[in-house]
């Protein structure tokens, strides 16, 4: 049995859902014959035809608006943003319309917006951003970011079957850098449920996306020093699995929040708020946030390396917190 990469897993997830449900279709820029900028939809045109693999003009707002309209009229669109950064061009459609339909008029919007996000690929200020927070802050949206190939497929399939709009953030660096053996049959991974990736007793680290791997690498090295770090992968950023966050804090009594997104207004602050309100008395040390600095994502290798949180940084902070 061969291993499946994260990007192949996403492709397989869409493919299987399109086989399963004739109302599922994909739409975006350069996705039909070309197969998409990251080749996620390669081969789908041949299998499913033009009607279900829809190339659009370069119009993010119209893509999202049309996806929403199609969802209102009974379809289950899976939209591709060429890069998550350009989802900003459809921001109004997403946040002012799609997200509010159920609340305003009881209209469900079963729509997935797939968006390749994240850095470490020399993408620079327009092709590397982590754009989750404006969407996390929008009631009515679900925001998902898988860290593994298994989750990429399972969460995407669950997102396509979900009856609320889902922002599905795919990490570009993970596309081809992680792979694993996937089960042959149909499976989904539930939205809104975090997963403990590594059990530990001394302290916890909460992360998502690529940073889960950074956390796991750090935990492996810390183990050699006798520091036992629990790694919690959030998987869904909205709605948050608060119980899982609180459970790990109550277990280890020390917590680091790690994200690739910039610090101010990042998810770490929200997580700290939840822990401060609900598990303050369990804390044996200060909550620690590790995030990118508040700058645009720089291009040059030296700058981008300095920008992104590193395994060494996590190790150092974990040691400090453990000693506290």
């Amino acid at each position, binding site marked *: 049995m061969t291993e499946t990469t994260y990007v192949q897993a996403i492709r397989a997830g869409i493919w299987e859902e399109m086989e399963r449900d004739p109302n599922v*279709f994909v739409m975006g820029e350069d996705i039909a014959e070309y197969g998409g900028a990251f080749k996620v939809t390669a081969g789908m045109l041949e299998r499913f035809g033009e*009607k*279900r693999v*829809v190339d*659009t*003009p370069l*119009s993010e*707002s*119209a*893509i*999202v*608006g*049309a*996806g*929403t*309209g*199609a*969802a*209102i*009229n*009974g*379809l289950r*669109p899976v939209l591709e943003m060429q890069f998550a950064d350009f989802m900003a061009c459809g921001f*109004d*459609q997403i946040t*002012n*319309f799609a997200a509010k339909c*159920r*609340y*305003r*008029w*009881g*209209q*469900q919007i079963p729509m997935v917006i797939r968006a390749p996000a994240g850095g470490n690929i020399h993408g620079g200020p327009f092709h590397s951003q982590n754009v989750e927070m404006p969407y996390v802050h929008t*009631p*009515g949206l*679900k925001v998902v970011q898988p860290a593994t190939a298994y989750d990429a497929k399972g969460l995407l399939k669950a997102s396509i079957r*979900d*009856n*609320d709009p889902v922002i599905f953030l795919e990490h570009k660096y993970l596309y081809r850098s992680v792979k694993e053996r996937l089960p042959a049959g149909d499976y989904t991974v539930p939205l*809104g449920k975090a997963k403990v990736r590594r059990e530990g007793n001394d302290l916890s680290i909460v992360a998502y996306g690529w940073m889960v791997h950074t956390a796991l690498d750090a935990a492996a090295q810390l183990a050699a020093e006798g520091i036992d770090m629990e790694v919690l992968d959030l998987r869904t950023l909205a*709605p*948050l*699995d*608060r*119980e899982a966050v609180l459970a790990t804090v109550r277990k280890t009594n020390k917590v680091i929040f790690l994200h690739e997104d910039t610090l101010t207004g990042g998810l770490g602050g929200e997580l700290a*708020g*939840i822990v401060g*309100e*609900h598990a303050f008395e369990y804390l044996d040390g200060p909550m620690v946030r590790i995030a990118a600095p508040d700058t645009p994502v720089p291009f040059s290798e030296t700058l981008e390396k300095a920008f992104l949180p590193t395994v060494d940084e996590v190790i150092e902070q974990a040691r400090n917190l453990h000693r506290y």
Partner: protein
Amino acid sequence: MGALAAALPATEIDLDLARTLLYHMVMMRELEDRIETKLYRQGKVLGGCYTGRGQEAISVGSAILSQPGDWLTPSHRDMGALLIRGIAPKEILAQYMGRAGGLTRGRDGNMHMGCAKRHCVPIISSIGASVPVAGGLALAMKYRGESNVVFNYFGDGATSRGDWHEGLNMAAVMDLPIVYLCNNNQYAYSTPLDRQMNIDDVVERAPGYGLPAEIVSGNDVLAVFKATRRALEHVRGGNGPYLIECKTFRMSGHSAHDRAEYVPGMLREEWSRKDPVLMLQKYMVDREWATEQDFKQIRKGVLDEIDNAVEWALAQPFPDPSTLEDDVYETAPSGGRLRSAP
């Protein structure tokens, strides 16, 4: 009258059609008048209050041609479309009053209402945003091989938004079944047309996207009807979208708070002589289809209906505050109430 079934199918201009059109135009005029000049001033309607006074012919003359499977995205000047789709005055009033029995159950106000069952998308307040959404509704029709169409309504100001251009372009590229109905009432809030666009007519934008367009008198309901019929022939025939620019004038402020002092008096006076209700009545009298007495009766019937509807709406409860956090998602996130407490 008032129900969708009663209005459909309308194709020929005859006495029945004229009466139906007149009824809906008078209902829209009187209902909005009641809301703006009475209920709003009495504080029974809060928030914004937009009317389509003087523009009734546009929504009525076009929506009357809609089939049950069609979708409509009315603008804030198009109450007539909602009425024709069978949305009752009492539902509209309860909506304006923020009652639980209103179309959005108090979640949204004023003309920001719609109804999935009756295929009316509620106004997307971001002006112009309905244009791409209309594209998606139409795309789903094409996807299933239906012959339905979308009636997408907007004002002249909307045509300055990027969404309008993205939406038109995409629909034209994809040959989507949409009739675009622009109410060019010459103002967007306080901004006159010549500060909105450097062209005289909205239709001049259409060739840039390769779609047919025509100008019609938006105060002549029969002209709107005929133009819509032409557009539908094109669109239902699978030939892609079609734009109708309805020349009209906003005979009110932008909303109830706005006295529109920026509008030259002459202009308003000129357009008051083209009142769409009076124009239709004159047409009917000229053909001896009706008399002043008939019109009085129609108006009286409408006013009675509105009285009853107001009474019903005022008796509706306000939404229960405990429902505040319902319906954000299909299933409420675990942890119960979204607000945290120590």
